[in-house]
C-alpha cells in the first residue's frame, strides 16, 4: 500500500498543473497577508476605539431585517467589546497568529485546488488509457482506488500546511515572530466569553478544516470515479460548493437542512461561535461530514470494483 501511495504521489507531483496550483496558493497567501497588513491600523487609544465599536454594533442590531448570521456576528462582537471595557482587556496587537485567524477564507482556495487534483486522479487514468496497465498488477482494485484517495488527501493536507507556513512567514515580516502563548477573548460553545490562546485557536481552525476539505475532495473523487470524467467532476463539485455556501443561511430557517453537508462545512463558524443553528455543535458537524465521506467512498468502491474496463 505504501508503494501504491508513493506511486500516486509521484504522479501528482510530476505534473505541471500541481506546481501551478501550489505557486498560485503561495501567491494568494502572500497577497492576503499584504492586504491584511495594509488594513490593520493600531489603535492609539483602545478604550475610545472599543466604545466606538460598541455603538456601531448596537446600531447594526437595530436594523430589523438583519440576516440571522450577521445578527449573531454583531451580538458576539458586542459581547466581547463590552467584556473588554468592563474587565480592562484590550485587543491584542496584530501578530502572525491573529492574521492567520483572519484569513480563514483561504481554506476555500485549498478546497478548490484539492478538488481539481482529486477530480482527475481516477478519471485521468481512464482518459489516458493507463488504467488498464495499472489494474493488471497483483493488487486488489480496492488498494488501487484507496491509494489514490489517500494520495489526494495527503496533497490537500500539504497545501493546508503550505498555507499555514507561508501565511505565518509572510506575516512575520510585518509583525515579528508573535507570541505563541498570547491570548484573546473568544466565545465558547455556550456563548460565554473565555480567554483562549490565539495560536491554539489557529491550529484548531486549520486542523478541523481537514474535515470539510476531505468531504469536498471525496465528493470530487467519487464523481470522477463513477462518471470517469474529470471536467464533469470539477464542474459538479464547484457547483455544489457555491450552492453550499448559500445554503448556510437557509439552514438557519429550515431545520432539516442541517443534515446536509453544506452548513457543516465551515469550521470557522465554530471558532467564532456562529453555528447555522443554535443546536448544531462541532461534533455534530464532524459526524455529518464523516457519514457523507463514508457513503461516497463506499459508492466509489462498489462502482470501481464492479466495472468492466473495456476502453
Amino acid at each position, binding site marked *: 500500500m505504501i508503494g501504491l501511495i508513493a506511486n500516486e504521489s*509521484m*504522479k501528482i507531483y510530476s505534473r505541471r498543473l500541481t506546481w501551478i496550483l501550489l505557486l498560485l496558493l503561495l501567491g494568494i497567501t502572500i497577497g492576503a497577508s499584504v492586504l491584511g497588513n495594509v488594513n490593520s491600523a493600531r489603535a492609539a487609544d483602545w478604550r475610545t476605539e472599543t466604545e466606538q465599536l460598541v455603538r456601531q454594533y448596537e446600531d447594526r442590531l437595530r436594523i430589523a431585517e438583519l440576516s440571522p448570521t450577521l445578527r449573531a456576528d454583531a451580538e458576539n462582537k458586542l459581547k466581547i467589546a463590552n467584556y473588554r471595557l468592563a474587565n480592562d482587556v484590550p485587543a491584542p496587537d496584530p501578530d502572525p497568529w491573529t492574521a492567520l485567524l483572519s484569513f480563514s477564507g483561504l481554506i476555500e482556495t485549498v478546497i478548490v485546488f484539492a478538488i481539481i487534483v482529486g477530480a482527475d486522479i481516477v478519471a485521468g487514468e481512464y482518459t*489516458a*488509457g493507463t488504467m488498464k*496497465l495499472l*489494474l493488471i498488477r497483483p493488487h*486488489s482494485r480496492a488498494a488501487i482506488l484507496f491509494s489514490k484517495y489517500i494520495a489526494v488527501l495527503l496533497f490537500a493536507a500539504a497545501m493546508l500546511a503550505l498555507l499555514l507556513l507561508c501565511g505565518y512567514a509572510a506575516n512575520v515580516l510585518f509583525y515579528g515572530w508573535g507570541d505563541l502563548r498570547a491570548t484573546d477573548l473568544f466565545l465558547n460553545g455556550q456563548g460565554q466569553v473565555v480567554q483562549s490562546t490565539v495560536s491554539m485557536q489557529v491550529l484548531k481552525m486549520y486542523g478541523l478544516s481537514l474535515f470539510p476539505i476531505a468531504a469536498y475532495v471525496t465528493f470530487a473523487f467519487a464523481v470522477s470515479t463513477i462518471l470517469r470524467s474529470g471536467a464533469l467532476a470539477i464542474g459538479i463539485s464547484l457547483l455544489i460548493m457555491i450552492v453550499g455556501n448559500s445554503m448556510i443561511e437557509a439552514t438557519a430557517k429550515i431545520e432539516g437542512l442541517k443534515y446536509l453537508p453544506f452548513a457543516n462545512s465551515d469550521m470557522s463558524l465554530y471558532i467564532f461561535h456562529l453555528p447555522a443553528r443554535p443546536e448544531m455543535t462541532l461534533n455534530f458537524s464532524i459526524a455529518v461530514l464523516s457519514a457523507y465521506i463514508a457513503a461516497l467512498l463506499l459508492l466509489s468502491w462498489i462502482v470501481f470494483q464492479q466495472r468492466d*474496463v473495456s476502453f
Partner: protein
Amino acid sequence: MNHMPVVRFERAAKKVGKRTIVHDLSFDIAAGEVFGFLGPNGAGKTTTVRMMVGLIKISRGDIFIKGHSITKSFKQAIRHVGAIVENPDLYNYLTGYQNLKHYARMVPGVTSDRIEEIAETVGLTGRLHDKTKTYSLGMRQRLGIAQALLHRPSLLILDEPTNGLDPAGIHELRGYLKRLAREEDVAVFVSSHLLSEMESMCDRAGVLQNGKLIRIEKVNDLVRGGDKKLVCLTLDPAQAQQARNLMTASNYEVRSEERPGELRIPLRPDEIPAVSQMLMQAGIRIYGIQMREPSLEDKFLEWTEEKK
C-alpha cells in the same frame, strides 16, 4: 520440463446483455510457446485479452494462469502475467525511468538494477530519463514491452504489438519474442489481425471469427494444409481477359489480378499441365507458371469464406 500449461482456457465466454461476444474458448498454451491469436477487427480478440488479465469479468467458464483462476485468485494469477493491452499507454508527464519505477513498485522484488537491465534489453538506455511524451511510437512500444517484462512473467500478452512499428522494429520484436520463449521459457500470447507477421512469429495459432475459435493449429500446418496450391500465371496483359473467360468457362476459380497479366488460380498440381495446354491451344502466350505456398493471409480468407 513442467507439463502444466501456463494458460488454460476452460470454456471461457463473455456475454454483454444478450449478445455473446466471445463463445466458449477452450485451449492451452505451454511454456516456451509463441501463440498467435488471429482474427479480423471486431472478432473478440481484445475482449479475450481483457478477460485473461481480469480487466473484464468472465461471464461463464474460467481462465487459469499457472493453475490460478484469474477470477478467484486474481493476485496469484496476475503475478505471472506481463501485458500490453491495446496501445502502450504511458504516463506522458513521467520519464521512461519513472514509468518503469512506477510498475516496479507494484510487484515485490523488482530492483532498480532490474529496471536498468530491462531498459538495456529493449534498447532505451540512452533516452530513459526523458519524458515519454517525447518518445516515438516505436520507443513507446519498447517501453511498453519493458514494463510487461519487468517482473519476469511466465506469460507475456501482447495485443496487436506490431501496430505502429516499422519493418525493422517488427523484425526485431519477432527475434526478441522467439528468444524470450526459447531461452526463458516464457509463454507468449500475441493477438493480431496482420497474419503475415504472425506467420513468422508464432509456433501455433488460433483463428477467431465472430467470437468463435474456428481453427487452432501449428502455424506450419495451418499454412500448408489442403491439396490445392495457389498457382500464379504470368501472361500477356492484353490476353488476360480472354484467359480469364476461358478458365471460368472450365469451372476454375480465378482470383483477382494483383498486377496486369497475372492470374492467381487455386489448383491441384496435377491440373497444371491440362490448364497450360488449354491456354496454349487458345493462342495465349504464357510467360511463366509459378506454384506459391499459400500465405496465412490466403488461408485466412479461405476459412472465413467457408464459414459464411
